C-alpha cells in the first residue's frame, strides 16, 4: 500500500471521478444508445453519438479474465526499481468490462467470476520522489 507519509498523485486524473469520497473510475455513457466506455471519450464507438455525459463506474464487479505479467515490460512501462510480477484482468462492472491491474499476482488465487473491488496500488515513483498510484481490483473482502 502507498506510504501515507509521501506525496502521492494519481497516474492520470481524467480516469477518476473528481472529489469522490472513495476512488471511483470515470466513464462515459452515450445518451443515444447507452453504451458505456472507459476511460471517458467524447463520441460513441457504437452509434457515433456525440452526447456522452461522464458517469461514475461501479466500484465492484467480477473477474472476466486474468493473467499475470511475469516479465518486465519495455518502456513506456514505468515500474518500481525492482520488478515484481503483477496481475492483469478484465472486470465486469455491469455496464462495461474494464481492463485493470489486479492487486493479486498469485494466479492460483484468481478465477473467473471472482468478486473484486476497486483499490489504488503504487505504480511507480516520479523523479522528484512523488509516489504515483493507479487503479486496480482486489479480491472483495466479504463482510
Amino acid at each position, binding site marked *: 500500500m502507498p506510504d501515507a507519509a509521501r506525496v502521492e498523485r494519481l*497516474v*492520470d486524473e*481524467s*480516469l477518476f471521478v473528481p472529489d469522490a469520497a472513495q476512488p471511483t473510475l470515470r*466513464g462515459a455513457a452515450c445518451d443515444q444508445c447507452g*453504451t458505456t*466506455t*472507459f*476511460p471517458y471519450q467524447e463520441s460513441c*464507438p*457504437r452509434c457515433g453519438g456525440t452526447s456522452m455525459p461522464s458517469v461514475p463506474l461501479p466500484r465492484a464487479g467480477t473477474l*472476466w*479474465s*486474468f*493473467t*499475470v*505479467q*511475469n*516479465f518486465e*515490460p*519495455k*518502456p*513506456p*512501462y*514505468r*515500474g518500481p526499481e525492482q520488478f515484481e510480477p*503483477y496481475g*492483469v*484482468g*478484465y472486470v*465486469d462492472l*455491469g*455496464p*462495461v*468490462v*474494464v*481492463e485493470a*491491474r489486479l492487486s493479486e499476482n498469485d*494466479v492460483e488465487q484468481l478465477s*473467473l467470476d471472482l468478486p473484486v473491488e476497486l483499490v489504488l496500488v503504487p*505504480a*511507480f515513483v516520479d523523479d522528484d520522489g512523488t509516489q*504515483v498510484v*493507479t487503479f486496480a481490483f482486489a479480491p472483495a473482502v466479504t463482510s
Partner: protein
Amino acid sequence: MKVAIVGIGIHPFGRTPGVSGRQQGAQAARAAMADAGVSWSDVQFAFGGSHSAGDADSLVADLGLTGVPFINVYNGCGTGGSALIAGRSAILSGQHDLGIVIGFDKHPPGAFNTDPASLGLGEWYGETGLMLTTQFFAMKIQRYMRLHGISVRTLAAVAAKAFRNGARNPNAWRRDPLDIDAVAASKMVNDPLTQFMFCSPGEGAVALVLSRADQAHRYTETPVLVEAAEFRSRRFGSFEVFSPWLSPESAPGPTVEAARATFEAAGIAPDDIDVAQIQDTESGAEIMHMAETGLCKDGEQEELIRRGATEIGGSMPINTDGGCLANGEPIGASGLRQIYENVLQLRGTAGERQVPGDPRVAFSHVYGAPGISACTVLTR
C-alpha cells in the same frame, strides 16, 4: 475468370544477420519469378509491404527500373493477405494479366513495444504495464479454456506439433523438436502461456507470381487457383488487443466473418479443407482460431488435438510448416508464408512434411491488431 498462383519464392525465416529485410524481399521475388519462368520486365504490377523493414516499392531499385506500378501495403499482420487480395483484384478487373505480390520484414528481438499515443490511448496505459499484446492473448485463452474445457497440456501439444513440423521445414527458424513436457515446463510469460507457446518477432520474405488462370499454363504445369480471398475488420463488441474496456454486448471477432465470407465466395465448406494454415501467434490462438474459422466447434479442439487430427497425417492438418511458432513472426511476410506452404502442399512438393492423400483444397487465415483478419481458399 480466375486467378492462379504460378510462381512462389521464399527467403528463409529466422535471423539472417547482415541481410536487410528489403534484400530478403528482393531474393524472394527473384525466386518466385524463376519458379514461374518470368523476368521482372514481364511483371505488369506489384503489391507489397513490410511493417518495419522499409517501403516495398523501393525494391524497384533492386529488381529493375521498368516503370512497373508498385503499390505499398501497410496492414499489420494482414499485409500479405491484403497484397494478395489487391493483386488478385488487379487481374480479375481485367486491368492486368501477370503480376507479383511481396511481403518481407525484419524485427529486433523481444516483444513488440507500441506507443499508446499511436492508438489513441493515454500514457497511463503504457506506464502502468497494460500495453502488451501477450497479455491480450493470455486473457483470451484463459477465459476460453475455462468456458470450453481446454487443458494446459493441449496448449503445450499445439506448440510441440509446431516444432515437430518446423524440424521438417528447411525454411523454418526453429528446427529442434521440443516435446509437450518441455514446452509446458518452459518459463511462464503470461499465465497460462509459457515461453515456447509464443511466437517471436523475426525475419523473412515471401513472393508470389499471379496470372490469369487461362494463361497459367504458360508459366507452370501446376497452377494453384485462388478461389476466394476476403478481409474483414472488427465490429463493435469483439475482444481485441489493447482494449482498456469491452462492451458486455459481445460480438464475434473479425476471423469469424472473414472465414465465413471466404468459404461462401469459394463455394466450399470447412469440411472440404484438406490442409489449413491458421494464425498461431501463440498456441491458444491456433486452438481458438480452429473454431472461429469454422474448422471445428468450440470445445472440440481438446479431443481433436489429443487424437492427432491436426498433425500432418491427421484428418485436419494445421500449420504444416510449423506456423508462426516455428517460423517466427515477420509481420509483413507471415500471411504470404501460409500461401507459400499451401501451394507446396497442393503441388505435392512439400517433401518430408507433405500431407498424404493428394490434397486439393487449402485454407489460410491471418489475424492481427487492431482486429483484422484475412482468409483464402486455394485449390488445384
